[in-house]
């Protein structure tokens, strides 16, 4: 059976790369002594996969890991056993068994939500500038994101983009976003942030902005009838 775990990672552990995160979970599984299944061969390894590699520096409240286990395991019990041996800022918040024909987590990804905290020397003025930039972005039909390799229009992949009202966040500038992910159109939050800084109102402001925290909130999959639902929702299992 395959169990899908939803996990968060917060704090200093966010500076791990994807492969190290995987190695971390493998050790957690070993420590907890839960009955994972292994590949054949001289150096058997656990059959573990992730929905969406977590970038270095990114926090998450809603990432997913699939683990093949011996049949008959109770997802919640396994979750508790794994949580009992972790205290580094990683925590599993939900566990569900996949149906036999479920898509693997990576292939199922359709969208993700993020929040982003931006530092600025003059926060009050800065928030106005970012607010304007967000409006400019949403108003246009094409937004070209330049990466090292290519340039693509990410506008259709921005499902939502909001700036948090001031009263909720004190001095911080915080924006939240709902972005298309996966094989069709993948919008990376960092690319979006970089592109935001090229909007006319930012460029004209003379202020400088720095990303101080990037956090994924949830990863979604697409149901048969075209809704984006969290990856542990019964309709995408």
């Amino acid at each position: 059976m395959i169990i899908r775990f939803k996990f968060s990672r917060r704090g200093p552990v966010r500076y791990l790369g994807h492969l190290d995160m995987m190695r971390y979970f493998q050790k957690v599984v070993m420590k907890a002594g839960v009955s994972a299944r292994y590949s054949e061969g001289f150096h058997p390894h656990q059959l573990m996969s992730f929905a969406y590699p977590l970038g270095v520096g990114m926090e998450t409240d809603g990432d997913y890991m699939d683990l093949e286990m011996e049949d008959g395991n109770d997802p919640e019990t396994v979750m508790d056993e794994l949580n009992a041996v972790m205290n580094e800022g990683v925590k599993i918040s939900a566990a569900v068994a996949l149906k036999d024909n479920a898509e693997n987590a990576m292939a199922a990804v359709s969208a993700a939500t993020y929040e982003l905290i931006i530092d600025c020397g003059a926060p009050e003025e800065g928030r106005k500038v970012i607010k304007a930039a967000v409006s400019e972005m949403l108003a246009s039909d094409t937004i070209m994101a330049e990466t090292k390799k290519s340039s693509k229009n990410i506008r259709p992949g921005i499902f939502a983009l909001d700036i948090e009202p001031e009263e909720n966040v004190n001095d911080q500038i915080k924006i939240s976003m709902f972005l298309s992910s996966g094989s069709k159109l993948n919008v990376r939050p960092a690319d979006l942030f970089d592109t935001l800084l090229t909007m006319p109102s930012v460029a004209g402001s003379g202020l400088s902005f720095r990303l101080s925290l990037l956090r994924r909130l949830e990863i979604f999959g697409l149901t048969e009838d075209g809704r984006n639902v969290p990856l542990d929702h019964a309709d995408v299992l």
Partner: protein
Amino acid sequence: MIVKAEDRKLALTHEILMSIDKPSRYTGGEPNSVMKDPDKTKVRFVMCFPDVYEIGMSHLGIQILYGMFNSWEDVWCERVYSPWTDLDKIMRDRKIPLFSLESQRPVKDADFLGITIQYEMCYTNILQILDLADIPFYSKDRTDADPIVIGGGPCIYNTEPIADFFDIFYIGEGEVRYRELLDLYEECREAGIGREEFLKRAVAIEGIYVPSLYDVTYDENMRFVSMEPKYDFVPARIKKQLVKDMNEAFYPTAPVVPFIRATQDRAVIEVQRGCIRNCRFCQAGQIYKPVRERSVDYLLDHAKAILKNTGYEELSLSSLSTSDYTGLKRLLEELIDYCSQKKINISLPSLRIDAFSLDVMNKVQDIKKSSVTFAPEAGSQRMRNVINKGLTKEDILNGAEMAFRGGWNKVKLYFMLGLPFEEHEDAEAIAVLCNDIAKVYFDTVPKEERKGSVQITASSSFFVPKPFTAFQWAPMNKPEEFLEKAKITKAAVRAQLNQKRISYHYHDCGTTIIEGVLARGDRRLSASIEYVYRHGAIFDAWTETFSYENWIKAFEETGVDYEDYIFRTRPDDEEFPWDFIDSGVRKEFLLREWKNASMAKKSSNCREQCMGCGCTGFGCGVCVE
């Protein structure tokens, strides 16, 4: 209050962390790292391995001391490693003080900075650590606002080139005297006694060497003459400390597990300490004498506990010569049994190749991918007698034959060049030995059974004479002699019938020369080390950052005739700067071995027959078996 690992405020900003390679080298919080309440501990001890995180985290000694210190309620032990060059630059530019991984607080505020010194080429990194921490380089310039800087590890068997940079050296195995030292420290602090007086009192503890309490004299050629205590309460000789009963000593069952892949990314059990073999070039073989074993039961219990507490998927056995461990058969049988149930790999140390080891290797490795390893160290039998390496050509060829029959076809061989009394034909003999191994393959394995063909990989490093070995009197080869010998070996390999099956590599010789100078140098070298550091040297153990020219210039500028330390044969009666250390092994014994070497005369090992090296005084290990 104890701050949880996940709630710590990091010393580096998000922006900096995102701009450097492998930021989690600097963020701590790894599984089994220890957080304590600073208000409830009396001593903050920062332990440093002066190289990059992945190397430092692979070191067993720090894990032992870290676990032991943190098992004491009054002590909080933290870690720090050398910031890699990318972060080093940022820290200098922005004046960010060096911080420890756990608390992320400045190292300068600690009570102790303990530096483990594993190889000479990290000496400039020691200065980097002090520099970034804003601690004066020289002990004499430090005040009560600085931590006590204490050094340990194998290089302290010649502390002198770095003696001025340290307040204390701890001579020997850390498990033994630290409690006493920390008790004294706490006592002094409560009584309002400062560092100077503390250091004076510390010398009453066995194994504690305070370099500033000695005067060194040199002759008109600037050669070391003697080192005398400045006061009568300072001991003239410092006795190496060692663990008498390895089954009683502290061993960590919950070592810190690095998040990122370290060089040694596995659980480790140390089966024994020391070595019975008396190879004449080998410092480790002498300074860890006598060999002391751990019981099989102790090791099995610890291995299981470590695996349970770390989640490692691989276990390895550590010691200088694991084949000599008397309980090896039972240990491996039980471990293989346990680990295969738990899907844990066993990574074997290089064992002496025989029926038993091949059987074990067959069980835990993929024969197609693995190789069998021999370390004859020298190509000819005469040279192996000179260095007292017991391995004969017959052993090697028989071992290879057995391995080929068992299905292996990769052989690795390790040699040294530039050994004392070495001739050109000894360099050629390396090639002949490789060729003979290939021949054994073709004679042993019928054509139709050959899968791929035999691959022989030979590599040679250049020999560096080390203190506390029979070769401490020996001259080193000059760079051109090293290279000439490597060329001879290379040409000889090409001339062999089976040359296509043999690949030969040799190591760089620039590092070797500098290592040689630092290994047998004296206190005058601290100026050279400071000079070379101030002119940009750092991470000298790394080829991409090492500069030979820089070092040679530093010796010239600081008036040090470096050739005098390495290229001459030292007279039998020369006083060495490291003679004040009582390692247990007597100088007369080493001298006798030096003479035996010159006659290519073999000696025994500790189990065949005691050679009376002087270690019986410790009353433990193989000496009393």
